[in-house]
């Protein structure tokens, strides 16, 4: 039994530990490292939605902390039997340290769990190390007086295994790296991954080997510093590419580490004054730490919210883009359809009209007078239909935004009105109503698409003539500041108040559209309104009510250049 033996030192703490024996680095670096390791582990684990990769980081940080804790105990434990056990168990913690990073690298790069064979391989290695712990492979002898162990080859084999794992990680990452493109975010991640893991394993390996070779075990204490680099880089990577904020964990780590450091002073301090001071310092750290962590947390939460919103906006934008594409497709489809329709609707009418013309001309033999009259009547019907179809198609095209005006300067508005009037003259004479035209002496020249504007005004004037049975239509052209105004006043049937507002809006239902087209009005007014709007003009109607006539106003800007 070695239970009665003691290592050098005075077991002042809990009758077991001599806190003065260990090198200062143990307190000032290890406590901090353990705290940071565990915190990083938990943080990544929680933030990354409990994924396998963060679970592995977390597991590594736990095993690593146990390794450090064991290392610390080796320095501090005075009873030889405990110390012996701590020496013995080292290899078991050690073997996890290369395995977890390797496993993690696989999961991270492939975004899936390692194959079963890998796990079996890892399992066999861990179990064989465990089985070899009590054997001479692990520990050949134990110097009870100095609490120094004469280690067997096992730990050295594990060190070599660590190095092999580091190279394997570098190899796997390099292979993956070659397969990526420049600018790929995966590339940066791989660089961080290989830097973090291999740096850690190599530093760890070197410190262990040097400590072992020189028998100066303080050197081993430098190894864990690599762990900080590793955890820092891994956390940065996961967090950076998941758009989380590391500030919070940084703040928490700072506060806790400070707390732990000051807390460790308790073990060395003597006297009521120092103890009180340390107590006060600890409370202060706790309070300010809490404030710091809270404010950072708030900021982080806000940032995350903003990032989430930004992502949602981006998503919405994508959806909109997709919808626009669909609309464009639909628009194109509709346009093609309309092209076909205008062709198909007009063609038979043109043919009918052509045959009727030839019949009248006697190309197919002489016709009786009443037959000629009937054909002339048919031609009127066909002509009306052609007009309806034209109106309908033009309207559809304007509704699609296809109607474009080509504005050119130097258009004489009076001449347009004169042409309209002479075109309306036959109808006026037929109906026995008057058509007056008043115009100023000076020539009024505007910028316009002559043909389209003429069609627009013609529609309105034609409409006025159509609905006037008594009296007549008076067209007045005036100049008003930078505008020309055309008034078309009739003594016709007038417009009911409820219709006057949107008479130019063209918000027809299909059936209404068909009806309007059949009667040859309405659709034309919509089109007129659209054309005038494209001239930056205004058009509106006034009426004293049904049966009291109406006035249509058209205002067009006189554009200089």
């Amino acid at each position: 039994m070695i239970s009665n033996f003691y290592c050098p030192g005075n077991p002042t703490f809990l009758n077991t530990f001599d806190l003065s024996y260990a090198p200062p680095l143990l307190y000032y670096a290890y406590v901090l490292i353990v705290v940071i390791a565990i915190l990083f582990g938990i943080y990544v684990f929680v933030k990354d939605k409990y994924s396998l990769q963060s679970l592995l980081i977390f597991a590594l940080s736990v095993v690593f902390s146990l390794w450090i804790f064991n290392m610390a105990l080796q320095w501090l434990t005075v009873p030889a039997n405990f110390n012996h056990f701590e020496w013995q168990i080292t290899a078991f913690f050690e073997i996890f340290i290369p395995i977890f990073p390797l496993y993690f690298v696989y999961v991270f790069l492939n975004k899936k769990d390692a194959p079963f064979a890998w796990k079996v391989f890892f399992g066999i290695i861990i179990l064989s190390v465990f089985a070899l712990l009590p054997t001479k492979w692990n520990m050949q002898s134990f110097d009870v007086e100095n609490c120094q162990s004469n280690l067997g080859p096992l730990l050295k084999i594990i060190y070599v295994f660590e190095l092999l794992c580091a190279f394997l990680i570098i190899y796997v990452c390099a292979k993956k790296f070659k397969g990526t493109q420049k600018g790929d975010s995966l590339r940066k991640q791989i660089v961080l991954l290989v830097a973090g893991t291999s740096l850690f394993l190599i530093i760890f390996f070197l410190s262990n080997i040097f400590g072992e070779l020189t028998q100066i075990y303080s050197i081993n204490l430098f190894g864990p510093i690599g762990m900080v680099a590793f955890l820092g880089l891994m956390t940065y990577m996961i967090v950076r590419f998941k758009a989380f904020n590391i500030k919070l964990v940084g703040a928490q780590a700072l506060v806790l580490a400070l707390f732990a450091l000051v807390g460790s002073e308790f073990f060395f301090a003597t006297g009521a004054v120092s103890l009180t001071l340390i107590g006060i310092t600890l409370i202060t750290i706790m309070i300010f730490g809490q404030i710091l962590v809270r404010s950072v947390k708030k900021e982080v939460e806000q940032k995350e919210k903003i990032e989430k919103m930004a992502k949602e906006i981006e998503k919405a934008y994508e959806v909109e883009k997709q919808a626009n594409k669909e609309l464009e497709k639909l628009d194109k489809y509709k346009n093609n359809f309309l092209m076909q329709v205008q062709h198909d609707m007009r063609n038979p009418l043109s043919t009918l009209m052509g045959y009727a013309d030839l019949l009248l001309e006697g190309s197919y033999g002489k016709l009786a007078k009443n037959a000629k009259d009937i054909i002339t009547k048919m031609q009127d019907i066909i002509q009306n239909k052609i007009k309806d179809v034209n109106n309908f198609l033009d309207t559809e095209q304007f509704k699609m935004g296809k109607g474009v005006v080509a504005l050119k300067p130097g258009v004489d508005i009076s001449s347009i009105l004169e042409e309209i009037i002479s075109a309306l003259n036959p109808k006026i004479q037929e109906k026995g109503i008057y058509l007056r035209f008043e115009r100023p002496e000076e020539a009024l020249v505007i910028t316009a698409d002559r043909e389209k504007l003429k069609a627009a005004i013609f529609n309105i004037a034609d409409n006025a003539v159509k609905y006037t049975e008594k009296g007549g239509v008076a067209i007045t052209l005036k100049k008003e500041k930078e505008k020309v105004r055309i008034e078309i006043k009739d003594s016709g049937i007038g417009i009911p108040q409820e219709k006057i507002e949107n008479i130019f809006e063209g918000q027809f239902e299909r059936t209404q559209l068909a009806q309007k087209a059949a009667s040859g009005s309405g659709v034309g007014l919509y089109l007129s309104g659209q054309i005038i709007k494209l001239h930056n003009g205004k058009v509106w109607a006034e009426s004293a009510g049904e049966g009291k006539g109406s006035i249509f106003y058209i205002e067009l800007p006189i554009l200089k250049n």
Partner: protein
Amino acid sequence: MEKINKKILIVEDDEDFLSILKTKFTSEGFSVVTAKDGEEGISVAEKEKPDLIFTDVLMPKMGGIEMAKKIKESDKKALIIFLTNMKDSDDTNEIKKSGEFDYLIKSDLRISEIVEKAKIKLGLK
């Protein structure tokens, strides 16, 4: 009807409309040759050397626009008038803008007006 010493090629896939145009132009004293699509139009134009070509736009095999461009390539002086019911499409707008061709809408014109346009184009009026 006096004979006019001008040859007109009508390219049109609608048999009725083709027949109407042919009857009318013949009765006006023109000599008329016809084709039913753009491809045929090119070969007839090469063989018959018409003074004026009327062509539809939408036709099987080859449309009027492609045909007109090809005829213009080999004969810059060729007189080509589009006679169609396609008022607005991207293709026809391009043709109208180019100013190289006349562009008439069938349903806007009576048959006698089409003859008038032909006579003006040929300098007969």
